[in-house]
């Protein structure tokens, strides 16, 4: 072949390459549906990556579907999916750094609507069919929303004039009061009067309360991480606290060793046992007066376990391993006796769980 023709051929090949198109466009939509009891796994994704996702695990068939929100709706879930709750046939996914709560049909995963106007939402707590509270990492307010109308109806100021802005997190309800833990550089459990929608006081616990639950005895449990070395707050041993909501006093404290921190507090279905992560997974009867000697599940890996949930019906335990936080996480399913039943891959940084009964609840 002469040089002339090779030149022509090279030009043609180059032109073909130069006009190639980028592989970016709509996400192909699929129909996926759930049946029976299921577990939503909320995968945070990486901060500022926008790669949060929602996985769905069929508890009976032990099958998992990943990225269901994006696959069904052709839409990315957003940046840092924090938590999820199901109520009255609707799933509410709180997407922290997108400032939104997506409302979906928990059976078809179809997107129904959204609640906007939030700054950095963390958790949602339902008071009744028309009223729910949404906590926030940065906002000096807890937002009151109407879940049916999917709009904010009111804001409850939670700031203190002489204190730094509290970051409100998880919520539990006792009587007409909602208790919420302030985790980030704080040591308080705020108390909200749900009838007046006002801040009614607070309880001081240890440094950085990470999670909160209420047991069958109507006692509130809080676990703290104790801060960290060189923190402006200082550092102390993390601890587990039992609080009487009626008197608003700490009844009992179970301190950890210095440098140990606790998180992911949850209860079983009967709420007579609490579970939490403190390097290992621990379980403890709510009437116990001493810290257990042996963990429920021992962590012999180099990793910190990132999420924990207990099936309210079967008391099976689900444990999330985010591995290196930049790959698909893994969920381990254990029997109430601690026997491994299943293992499945989900999205990036699985951090929160939400059980659904398959009848819209």
């Amino acid at each position, binding site marked *: 072949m002469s040089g002339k023709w090779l030149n022509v051929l090279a030009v043609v*090949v180059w032109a073909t390459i130069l006009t190639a198109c*980028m*592989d970016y466009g709509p996400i192909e939509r699929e129909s996926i549906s759930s049946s029976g009891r299921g577990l939503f796994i909320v995968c945070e994704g990486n901060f500022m990556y926008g*790669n949060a*996702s929602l996985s769905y695990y069929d508890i009976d068939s032990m099958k998992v579907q990943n990225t269901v929100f994006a696959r069904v709706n052709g839409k990315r879930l957003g*940046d840092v999916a924090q938590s999820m709750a199901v109520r009255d046939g609707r799933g509410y996914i709180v997407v922290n750094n997108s400032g939104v709560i997506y409302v979906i049909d928990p059976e078809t995963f179809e997107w129904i*609507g959204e609640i906007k106007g939030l700054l950095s939402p963390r958790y949602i707590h339902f008071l009744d069919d028309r009223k729910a509270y949404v906590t926030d990492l940065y906002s000096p307010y807890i937002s009151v929303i109407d879940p049916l109308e999917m709009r904010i109806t009111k804001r409850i100021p939670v700031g203190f004039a002489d204190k730094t802005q509290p970051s409100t997190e998880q919520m539990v309800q006792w009587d007409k009061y909602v208790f919420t833990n302030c985790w980030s*550089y704080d040591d308080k459990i705020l108390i909200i009067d749900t009838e007046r929608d006002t801040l009614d006081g607070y309880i001081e616990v240890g440094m950085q309360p990470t999670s909160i639950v209420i047991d069958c005895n109507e006692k509130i449990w809080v676990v703290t991480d104790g801060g960290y070395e*060189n923190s402006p707050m200082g550092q102390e041993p993390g601890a587990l606290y039992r609080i009487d909501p009626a008197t608003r006093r700490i009844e009992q404290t179970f301190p950890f060793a210095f440098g140990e921190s606790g998180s992911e507090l949850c209860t079983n279905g009967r709420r007579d046992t609490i579970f939490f992560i403190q390097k290992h997974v621990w379980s403890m009867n709510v009437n116990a007066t001493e810290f257990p000697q042996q963990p429920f599940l021992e962590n012999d890996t180099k990793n910190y376990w990132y999420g924990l949930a207990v099936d309210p019906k079967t008391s099976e335990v689900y444990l999330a391993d985010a591995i*290196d936080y930049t790959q698909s996480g893994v969920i381990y399913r254990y029997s109430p006796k601690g026997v491994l039943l299943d293992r499945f891959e989900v999205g990036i940084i699985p951090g929160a769980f939400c059980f659904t009964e398959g009848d819209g609840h």
Partner: protein
Amino acid sequence: MDIKKWLLAGVFSLFAVAAAAQEMREVKIDEVEVNARRKLSEVGVTRTSLDSAVLRDNVTSSMADLLAQNTTIFIKSYGRGSMASASFRGTAPSHTQVLWNGMKLNSPMLGMVDFSMIPSYFIDGVDICPGASSVNVSGGGLGGAIALSTRPPEEPGWGLRFIQGYGSFDTWDEFLRVDYAGERFQSTTRFSYTVSENDFPYIDYQDPTLEGTYPRKRNRNGRYRDLHAMQEIYWQTRKGDRFGAAVWFVSSKRGIPMLNIDQRESGRARNEQTESTLRAVASWNRVRSNAKFGAKAGWIYTNSIYTFEGDNGNEALMEMQHAQSIVKSGFAEADASWFPNEKWMIEGSLSAQLHSAYNRERYTKTHYDKMRAELSLLAQAKYRPWERLGIGADVRWESYGRHVCAPVPAGFVEVILWPRYNLLLKASVTRNLRFPTLNDLYFQPGGNPDLKSEKGYTWDGGIEWSVRKRWFDFSADFTAYNSHIRDWILWLPTARGFWTPVNVNKVHSYGVELRGKLALRFGKGWTLDLNANWSWTPSINYGDKKSWSDESIGKQLPYIPRYSSNVVGRLGWRGFSFVYKYVYYSERFTTTSNDTDVITRLGSYYMSDIILEKLFRFGFGDLSVKFCVYNLYDEAYVSVLSRPMPGRNYGVALSIAPRWGSKNHRSE
């Protein structure tokens, strides 16, 4: 398909060029110029220098665009007017050492350089030194080093050039350069000011409405304003001493664009970064018949503030994060070179840096305030025993704080196979290291004072050749490399919710780089210049498994493309020039397990820009008008997850260079 296409293109192009060269060789063989003798300091070194023509073509671009379009360096750009980092051969941005007039620009806190903050207009020379070739430029270049330089004006007398640019999205650029070159004294003053609303529209294909349509959105909170001013002075004595000083001031205010999946209302949440930087460096050089001496001293001051403001529920925005970093760095260096005869070169240098870093978050009150001294001693020898053989060795010793690092050796060899065509084989090897940054060690929360230095072992070898005739100039080189890095520093979350750096990863990167340049001078004023780069860059994690479910081992590192290439073609005729720029990256994974699901994979990247320019010569000076089309094919894309990029957009630039007296320059 991508690989096949590229192989085909490469093969056909090589054949085409070879055939063209063959035809010319048949008729013009007597015009081949022999230029095999390289400088002793270059023995075995792989160095790519961007010539003045490339810099001239890109005066209104940032250094990030320049490198992406003209080198094998991978630029990870977070979007228009946003951060852009540079990676060599599958390494991290902090493994790229960047120098300006011999002074290191890498932030001692972050370890990297934002190339979007360096306007090409402020740089006169760019030398790219990958792998072992970086050892005599700087320590810590596990990937390589980029040496940026300014130079005294060459044309005698006064010179002035002003460029006014205007582009899409209300973007205004002003560039001014005033030169004076006397017999012994030269001065250059440069100024640039860029401001842009940067609110480009885009179709969001991955955030449809409830009705199923794809909304046309605008880039939000992307406004930026960058001001740069630089003054250089140079003075040469009759005895051969050269003194120089340069001061570079930067003031920048940039919005951090909201992600495309951010559902907050515009103006109800705002991230912003402001930076003020002053860099100053002074130098002295003395050249003797068989020796060179030099000394430098410099100072860098950077004050950067990141803020996040959010809706406080009462219409007003309230500041919720305010992180300030102040870095002061002093620098001093002395070097000497000795050429005892034509066969030997011996060189040594000693440099010292003293950093002071202060970082504080106003609301959480987290902070650190640290000082660190860094020393670096370099000795190198180059020897050419025979005309066709050169060998060299470098040794660099470094210390930071109280840590004295192991010596960094590097070896070089080159063999000239065919002097007529400057055909030479070259190879180099080194065992390098990079010590942790101040943030790695002390950032609150998460800094890890027990971190070890990252260690790298790398070798490369290649062949280069060039042919030069009166109207034909061709050069090409091929390099293969192999690199192992261990104790790679990676930030991972802790049980307390913050991240901390640990020495975990082991990375094996290897690959091939091809570079080619072709310049043709046809009759009747026609010219054609082609510059092409191609690289294959596997960069594989082979560290220990974090847990038995870890799928990252044996996988490509996130955001590093396996294949990349670029082509710049420039066709010129009687003052007109038409430039085509093309950049390609293969698919990139954003997870360490290389997942390919719909929300984590980034598809292949193809970008084409064109520029049409006309130069008018008048008696009073030169005037040029440039029209640019960026993203020629109006691609909808993201280069980094959730960061929208603009579709086709335009820019015009008017350049004026008055001519005084007999001076006749700046008309290129």
